[in-house]
């Protein structure tokens, strides 16, 4: 027990003195996810605000031929920039970015309109640009409203009830609760949390195994009258400590970021207060020893620091697989799914975000599965450390 703590303290002390490791474990890892997330969400918010609140602005060519249309567009709050381009020139203006979306009224428009034949209009836009696509979609909607207004007048003049031309009325009924909708946005936040856990212990796991061998201090260590399981146990314990720290920093950052990036304008309430952060911490805690043993296990088999880095970077992506699977098949919380680590954390954290209560059984199964797998991997690691091939 004393030897275990000796190894633990030495690894912690050594890591605390290594600025590069500390930077990656406690700054880059836990802050990267929440900040990236904050930027993404606020960008998303800006976009939605632009779409719904900004007045639509259009370039309009040949305004004199369609005074009725101009009046209607202005009544809808559309900002018009009048110009006099033929269709070809309008196309090149959009292609070169001088105009976003151009509405071209051709010369035959008024005569066709009077003759009650379909009057042509050209809406020039670049559909590959997501920003202008939204503008052109809005323009389309306004134009078709204008068109159906004219159609109804024509029917009325001819003594036909305009409602006859509207056989079906579709109304969208969205059942998503505000926080349920937020989950779509916040879903991948759970991966960032697990990512922070793993990154927190990444360098310690490498340093204490492959690093120790490369440095040439491993052989002297293995000569000591200390069971190898204790040596590797102390190293795993130190890795766990840094993973917990990284997890805590990451969660605190999330709370702060979501404090400054309000989701209410999107009609979402993200239940992300300190209480949620504590629940997240409790949910992810059993994942910590699993991550630590997995990383130490993988790093123990590598021959060099570089090799360990390569393999462990791949390990960072492992938790994404079940989460991606869950998103594709939109899995719901169920005790049988709780035996899959990372998936169980994802589902439990998602439930907390949705404001649902967590079944104690789910929590128990999730924790037991993680700890059991951690114990198994820990035993495999200790067995590998007992082999003489460890020295390479």
């Amino acid at each position: 027990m004393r030897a275990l703590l000796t190894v633990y303290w030495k690894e912690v002390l050594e890591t605390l003195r290594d600025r590069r490791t500390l930077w990656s474990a406690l700054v880059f890892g836990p802050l990267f996810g929440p900040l990236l997330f904050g930027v993404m969400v606020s960008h998303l918010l800006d976009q939605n605000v632009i779409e719904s609140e900004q007045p639509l602005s259009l370039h309009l060519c040949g305004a004199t031929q369609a005074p009725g249309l101009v009046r209607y567009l202005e009544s809808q709050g559309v900002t018009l920039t009048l110009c006099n381009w033929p269709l070809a020139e309008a196309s090149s203006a959009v292609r070169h970015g001088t105009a976003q979306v151009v509405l071209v009224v051709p010369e035959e428009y008024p005569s066709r309109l009077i003759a009650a034949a379909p009057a042509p209009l050209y809406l020039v836009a670049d559909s590959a640009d997501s920003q202008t696509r939204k503008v052109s979609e809005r323009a389309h909607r306004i134009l078709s409203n204008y068109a159906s207004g004219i159609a109804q007048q024509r029917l009325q003049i001819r003594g036909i009830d305009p409602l006859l031309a509207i056989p079906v009325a579709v109304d969208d009924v969205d059942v998503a609760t505000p926080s349920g909708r937020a989950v779509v946005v916040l879903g991948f936040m759970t991966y960032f949390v697990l990512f922070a856990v793993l990154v927190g212990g990444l360098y310690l796991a490498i340093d204490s195994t492959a690093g120790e061998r490369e440095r040439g201090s491993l052989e002297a260590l293995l000569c000591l009258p200390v069971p190898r399981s204790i040596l590797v146990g102390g190293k795993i314990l130190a890795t766990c400590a840094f993973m917990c720290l990284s997890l805590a920093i990451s969660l605190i950052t999330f709370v702060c970021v979501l404090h400054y990036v309000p989701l209410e304008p999107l009609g979402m309430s993200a239940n992300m207060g300190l209480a949620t952060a504590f629940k997240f911490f409790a949910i992810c805690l059993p994942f910590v020893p699993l991550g630590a043993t997995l990383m130490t296990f993988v790093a123990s088999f590598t021959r060099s620091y570089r090799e360990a880095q390569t393999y462990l970077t791949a390990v960072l992506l492992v938790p994404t697989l079940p989460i991606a699977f869950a998103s594709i098949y939109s899995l719901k919380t169920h005790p049988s799914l709780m035996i899959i680590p990372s998936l169980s954390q994802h589902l439990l954290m998602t439930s907390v975000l949705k404001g649902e209560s967590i079944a104690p059984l789910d929590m128990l199964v999730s924790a037991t599965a993680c700890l059991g797998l951690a114990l198994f991997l820990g035993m495999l690691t200790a067995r590998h450390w007992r082999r003489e091939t460890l020295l390479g």
Partner: protein
Amino acid sequence: MIEAQGLCKRFGAIDAARDVSFTAHDGQITGLLGPNGAGKSTCLRMLYGVVTPDRGAARIDGIDLRGETSAARARLGVLPHAVGLYGNLTARENIAYFGALHGVGAEEITRRTAALVESLDMHAFIERRAKGFSQGQRLKVALARALVHQPGNLVLDEPTNGLDVMAIRNVRQILLELKAEGHCILFSSHVIQEVVALCDRVVIIGRGRVLAVGAPQEIIQQTGTASLEAAFLHTLDSAPGAPDAASDTAAGIP
């Protein structure tokens, strides 16, 4: 006392050790002499318990070394071929870590370290972080961490490798002092002068076999040659199935 009894070790198709037997006594310096690739390091690794022999036994003060927590390990100080230190720990912390893992109390470690700083002349760098230490400084710290638990037996794998003349003299002086204190010292080398300067007993090893054992003078007499160097070459030459050994060896001598 360090005993090798019929040690055998095979790595794939290579016989690294074939029935190696010898004894290193207390109060003596025993040198394991052999050309590069003769199996010296493998023998030493079996004698300090990081490589398990296929057959035979390694004993320290009569205690078998098998097992991770064998009492034999506590009686053994080891200076492996690689003398890597923890770069972010000070020299003192490096030494204390090994002392603590040997189960030595904190006060005792402080006392022992003070004595080792004195005898190994480590005043200049004992509180400095080991990152950037010279080879000589690293070796001193590694030697101190091998001695912090006051072992009766010391195994060193080519301890003067890569040291300058002054540092080599220093290491020799330290080994002679430890011998005078009654320690059993076993070290490997491929440098004849070193063995001549230090050893009470020499074990000549080639192709995984013990070819000759005895005091340097005895070996010279047995082979009827004029120097240990000549005796060494003669022994390797006359070893069974070793036509190229002499030329290999000549290339290996600096």
